């Protein structure tokens, strides 16, 4: 408060120019670290991708019995972010062993195998 009671603003005091530079550098470093870590976490977080990949395998298996799972792959926007490899082998009469491997970029997201009725 000033002598006559009015509000006065005071400048933030830095003892030296060096202190100012250090303070601003510290702030810039902290903010850069924050931004960099934020985007790195986003890119390296595969939890949501794995859950989505599992859901996609459920879609594939559901459509496999109808014979339209190739069309399903091509039509679904969600599939375009992933590389999918499907392998089928006869397990026993009337049963097949299906292996579904899903990659995103170079990272292996999910490998799922199951035995279901059907023929290759």
């Amino acid at each position, binding site marked *: 408060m000033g002598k006559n009671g009015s509000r006065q603003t005071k400048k933030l005091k830095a003892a030296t120019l060096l202190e100012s530079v250090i303070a601003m550098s510290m702030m810039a470093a902290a903010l850069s670290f924050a931004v960099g870590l934020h985007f790195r976490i986003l890119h390296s977080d595969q939890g949501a991708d794995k859950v989505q990949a599992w859901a996609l395998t459920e879609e594939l298996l559901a459509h496999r019995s109808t014979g339209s799972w190739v069309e399903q792959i091509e039509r679904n926007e969600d599939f375009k972010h992933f590389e999918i490899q499907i392998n089928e082998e006869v397990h026993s009469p*009337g049963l097949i062993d299906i292996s579904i491997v899903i990659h995103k970029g170079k990272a292996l997201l999910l490998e799922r195998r199951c035995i279901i009725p059907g023929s290759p």
Partner: protein
Amino acid sequence: MHKRLKASALFYATTVSLLIGLVMGSMILLTHFRNIRSQEWIAHERAASNARSAAYFALHNSDRELGSIHVDLFQNGSDSATINVIPWGGLDLIKTRAWIADQEASITAFGGFLFDDQVVLDLARKAGPLHMCGDARIHGDVRVPLSDVRRGYIEGKPFTGEKLVNGQLFRSEDQNRSLRKDLESRLQQNCTRTHLEGEYPIELPEDHRYDNLGGSSPTLPVLQFHGRTHLEGYDLKGPILIRCDDSLSIDATNQMEMVIIQAPFITIDPGTRLTAQLFSTQGIHLSEDVQLLFPSMLAVWRDEHLAAPAFIRVGENAHVQGAVIAVDRSTRGRSQGNILIGSGALVQGEVYTDGSIQHQGHIRGTTTAGELILRTSASVYQGHLLDGTIQRYDLGSQWGFGCMTHSEERNILQWGRMVHARRRS
């Protein structure tokens, strides 16, 4: 006098940096916990998927009769399961348990066979020609003696159709087709109320409720009754076995799913709705409007020491989805009729008897019999079909009990409840 500490730019910069660091640290922790959560969820789903895969694996396991076995589903050391296959009437009761990390899933299932309905009616060679009367209709291939199908006239009812058989006519084979061997032995075992391995008696609480749909125990619960018994108000979800040493009747107040009922004589009262396999040595009577849902079975195995024939009577407008089997190898009582399908009744699935059938309802599936008969108040007519219809199965793929099948192809007919748990160390 103390001087107050003066805040400077460096102090504020340090404080803000610490705050940013705290926020970033929180984000890293939250992401880590979310990853853990998604890993847990995937392990949970993978365990359930492996439990189902193990059930399909068990369908073709050659050692399935040897009790509980451990399998490595995909030979990779990481997808393990235990399988237990128990004969359950005409089906296989499959119990599986799979685990991944600390997640465990168990499920029960009922395995069945594929049956062929290309030939919808197969009569024994000694039956004689087939006479079609009234509104009788056959849609599908037929195998009858000498491929002889004729128009008939019974009780003032001539044949009203245009074509006798809407399908191909074949000659009956020298030997009538026989039941699948292991099914035959199971029928005899269940009809004669032979005790099964793993049985243990249970007592129900006062509300007469029992739920075993998610049961992974290898044992079989048995409800034992003595003397003439009438069941009412029971709510049972199997697998569970009901055994009575005298006549047993069940009314429409009961709710039963996946049960086996064994008694010398069984009566199902009008309006009852069940999923059950019924086994008897003297007879089974389904009253009007009874519904036996898929996969159900009616089976009688005639006791050779009894003079009276064993029969299955499917009342008017009753509905059976599954199989109706009457085994009577004696020479007595052939003219009585082993299976009687009333007017308006519907059987979807397989019908088999080495005796005779009196059919005035609807069969959608396959019928194998010694002969068709028609019993009126005046007489018994052999080789006559009056108003009954026979056509192919219309509930999708022909999965059922596979009475006559010799195919190795198998499938799960019904799933129980999936039960999840955390593995104890």
